């Protein structure tokens, strides 16, 4: 799978959680990419592991928009 295809999948997963009412609450970046923590209600938490550079750019744009 090309980086671009992988990015499209990551973007879809991020968009899906936003559509469900989640927001990004925490981001941990390390050697493996970024762990993005989403939260909707107190108990509703999800984590996405974003690997691609375009994906990291995309969630950054969403964080700025969310702020």
């Amino acid at each position: 799978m090309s980086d671009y295809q992988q990015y499209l999948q990551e973007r879809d997963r991020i968009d899906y959680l936003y559509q469900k009412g989640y927001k990004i609450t925490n981001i941990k970046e390390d050697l493996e990419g970024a762990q993005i923590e989403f939260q909707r209600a107190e108990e509703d938490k999800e984590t996405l592991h974003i690997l691609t550079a375009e994906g990291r750019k995309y969630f950054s744009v969403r964080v700025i928009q969310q702020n």
Partner: protein
Amino acid sequence: MADLSINLAGIKSPNPFWLASAPPTNSGYQVQRAFEAGWGGAVWKTLGEPIINTSSRFAAISFNGQRVAGFNNIELITDRPLEVNLKEIYETKKRFPNHAIIASLMVEPQQEKWHEIVKKVEDVGVDGLELNFGCPHGMAERGMGAASGQVPALVEKQTYWVKEMAQTPVIVKLTPNITDITATAEAAVQGGADAISMINTINSLAGVDIHSWNTIPHVAGKGAHGGYCGPAVKPIALHMVGECARNPRINIPISGIGGVSNWENAIEFMLMGATGVQVCTAAMHHGFRIVEDMIEGLNNYLDEKGIASVNDLVGKAVHKYSDWGDLDLNYKVVARINNDVCINCNKCHIACEDTSHQCIDMLKDGEGNPILRVREEDCVGCNLCSIVCPVDGAIDMVELPNEFPPMTWNERQAAIGALACAVDTVK
């Protein structure tokens, strides 16, 4: 005709093209010949205690048929007595009163030595002084040139001593052989400099002869590091000029030096903050008359742009030179190959496949002819294919419409940081 005259910290010249302190400005004969050709100013080859030079002094780098792409020298400052130089400066200034003559100076870092030489050269009518804190070889081993130019405190102190005595504008010439040239530029400002010039030559060894195993150049089988200049150093010089021009604490004019070979190069330096330029290697390669093309080219450029004075160029591109953290991460360009121009040499494909992002496909068109096509979704816009392409117009780098709003790295990090703070607050 546009106005090409400049005024650099009070030093006036009919155009922005000066000869740099170097072999072309060694004598009155040469400087007068340069002024006759059209040069607006000359920085006289560095005056100081006369030295003894070696035989075999220069070397050049040729690259793929381009002669003198880079130039290396181990020549030192003037080897003639001060009085001889002063007499010729006086005669030259008398003959060319409207041209700028700047005396390059280098003495040991002692107050009385600076005072003595400043008084002597100003008495013969120079328009300004340039302090040589940059020469990287020979003189540096004696505590002068780059040896003092690499120490901000020495730059400041010596500039101050000169300013105690000087009646004419003082330009401090900086060495590039330092991690951050703004440190010494700021020191020059603190010392009271009226202007700075950059860059002096870069420490270098031009080569090693693979048959004799001698250095290039060599002196009786031995070599020593020299100073590198010429077209190859232009990007380094331009960066250093830009760094100083955009530093708010360096608020004095800049004389740009380093690989300036034609009028286009001069415009680049001026757009990046230089008030004028100094030239050496190009004159050594092609002779003084290259200035005719420089003047004509600059004048035509200004006329075509409707710019009345060359001074209106100074610093116009400085605000575009920023830090990586302030670049827009969402800006995107991609390569597009024009197959009607492409000669199918496949250099772009090979470059992309071997050393970049593997996004140029070798395909066949409807008639079975070989074509190259970029998969734009995988192209990162690195420019490599267009750089290696031997045919003008075969590859365009095309801006894509912004999918997302502009976002810099600094903005991204601030937003992510704010997120963490918000979480901390909730906790």
